[in-house]
């Protein structure tokens, strides 16, 4: 990609196809309302298109840039909503956690969704629910050692997915 790669409508369409799902997922998590989340995504692409000339892939990826814009849009939307409470009617209360943390949380959740079912299952059972390995092993009908190795490979898979998503731990 060359600098200003988002200045044409066609580039916006391509960027939308590649990134809208993730951006919407995060907007949805932060705003808790599908209508607002769609507005946030729309506003993100419109702003990105307007500022398209300024996008420089030497500095960072398009995805990172779009997330940075979305971050600002979510802040603006949150402000607009608190100024105009009627907009939030029927919606969910705005997320109270700081946005950076929300973004990281969303990344980890999204990465969890993308790893295999078996890996996610053992991480949920052993770590989030704190169940003993023997119990989980019996329930799954596998040896305890298999649960342990799935925890290991599950974490490794999670690391790979997070790195693909741009996380630099």
């Amino acid at each position: 990609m060359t600098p200003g790669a988002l200045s044409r409508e066609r580039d916006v369409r391509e960027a939308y196809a590649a990134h809208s799902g993730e951006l919407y997922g995060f907007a949805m998590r932060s705003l808790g309302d599908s209508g607002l989340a769609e507005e946030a995504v729309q506003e993100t692409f419109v702003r990105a298109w307007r500022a398209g000339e300024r996008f420089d892939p030497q500095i960072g990826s398009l995805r990172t840039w779009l997330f940075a814009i979305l971050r600002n849009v979510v802040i603006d939307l949150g402000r607009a909503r608190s100024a105009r409470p009627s907009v939030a009617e029927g919606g969910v209360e705005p997320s109270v956690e700081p946005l950076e943390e929300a973004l990281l949380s969303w990344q980890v959740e999204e990465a969890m969704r993308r790893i295999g079912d078996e890996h996610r299952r053992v991480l949920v059972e052993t770590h989030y629910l704190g169940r003993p390995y023997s119990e989980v092993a019996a329930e799954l009908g596998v040896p305890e050692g298999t649960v342990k190795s799935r925890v290991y490979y599950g974490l490794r898979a999670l690391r790979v997915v997070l790195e693909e998503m741009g996380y630099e731990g």
Partner: protein
Amino acid sequence: MKAESCRDWRLSLGAYALGHLSVEERAGLEAHLEGCPECRSEAESLKSLGRLLPLADPARFTHPTPKPAPELGERIASTIGAEKRREKRRRRWQIGFGFAGAAAAATAAVLAVLVLPGGGASEPSQNVAFASLPPGVDISATLQPHAYGTEIHMYVTGMRSGTLCRVFLRGPHGERVPAGTFRYRWGDDNEAVLSSALDLSRTRAIGVHAGSKTFVAAVQSAGAAETENHNQEDAT
């Protein structure tokens, strides 16, 4: 031999990094880590990963990723297309006024459009501001004459997102001529481009039904001797 024993230990590194091992298991593994830099660095990496896990809420990630409405992409494309056309028109204006220097021309063009008084058939366009609006709401319009009738640019801010707006023009005898509908969406792009068959020279007022309200603003077009001045009337 070492590689093989490493493999066995490695399979426990996940449970170790998450603090799931018993005291004895942990002691055994840590003895191995003492002498094995590769396993040690893997353990550190998994530990830092483990510190991220509490940030995620399993109630969220056990559901599939939510997806936006399929038409969102098209909506964005048409918003950008509309803005592009508006930008082109703005540039034409700058050229039309014949000023050198883009910045000066831009300022002058905008001022000229805003300041030119009403009246006169040669008037290129009419700017109309709606008054008596609810707090926070702003509606204005630009009307341009065409052979087919009138081109209308509506600029709206501050309404509830999703509000359906129906626009009409009012002729010299009070008759209403429809000028189309648009839906107000939150965002910076608050322009809707509409058209009506009524000539601008015959247009006396422009009205917008939005939600349960109707807002009307007078249009000072050529030959508009009598102008209507009520800005808000009850919904019909």
